């Protein structure tokens, strides 16, 4: 049941990305290019997503358990530190250069160009590289929350 729910959530996510225009990197770059022929329409993606998710997220913050049992995966890191900003800036440079963030890149794999394949392989390598370097810390439980 949990797997079926996750599968459906993934499918709905991909349909949302495709419908919204997020799967077209040219639209992304048009949204980011505020000094050029700026296309602000993709701001509505964020508006729609947060509009729907805001109240359920507030509920989840107070509820003892998810509806299907188990625990809530609550973010353990709370510090607004230089690691957060540095990582976000690096991500932003890559995103602004090509117009792909992780979700649309994976979704677009069903109609791949050779450059998309290169991008996704590099993205996975970058993710794996970070996770590999930080693996010992990640396995020691709550300690990394205050690190960095």
């Amino acid at each position, binding site marked *: 049941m949990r797997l079926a729910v996750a599968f459906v959530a993934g499918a709905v996510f991909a349909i949302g990305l*495709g419908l919204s225009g997020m799967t077209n990197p040219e639209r992304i770059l048009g949204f980011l290019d505020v000094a050029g022929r700026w296309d602000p329409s993709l701001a509505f993606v964020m508006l729609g997503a947060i509009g729907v998710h805001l109240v359920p997220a507030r509920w989840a913050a107070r509820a003892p358990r998810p509806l299907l049992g188990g625990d809530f995966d609550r973010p353990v890191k709370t510090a607004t530190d230089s690691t957060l900003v540095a990582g976000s800036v690096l991500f932003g440079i890559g*995103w602004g250069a090509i117009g792909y963030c992780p979700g649309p890149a994976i979704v677009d794999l069903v109609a791949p160009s050779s450059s998309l394949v290169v991008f996704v392989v590099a993205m996975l390598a970058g*993710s794996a590289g970070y996770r590999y370097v930080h693996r010992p810390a990640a396995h020691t439980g709550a300690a990394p929350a205050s690190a960095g």
Partner: protein
Amino acid sequence: MIGGASAALAGGALIGLSATILLVSIGRVAGISSIVGGLMEGRRDGLGWRVAFVAGLLAGAVLVAWMIPGSIVPRPATLSPVGVAIAGLLVGFGTQLGSGCTSGHGVCGLSRLSKRSLVAVLSFMSAAALTTFVLRHVLGGAS
């Protein structure tokens, strides 16, 4: 262009619905970079739902590519292969270092009114806009 803003709003609402399904029913956060990062780590706990979610992403992608022609088609990049690889490394490494991407910080974090996610979103949006500006208007000749 067919309904740019309204399609964006409707698509965004579906993304919010997806995040809600995942959080309310099984307590997991719909952050794509965290889901993918967890898979790359190869840990057995939490493997099942992550694999199921990514399988759902690909199934949904096939469906939407068929329902909305032109939504998902092969697109050549405007960068050289080396540039594409560097962009991929930056997106992969940066999202792990910063603990999230457009979905994790942008949708889930902002919905949770997380100050940390707000800082992340402002950081990656401004870095992305600046990069696009430099590549298009300083280095490139695009209008």
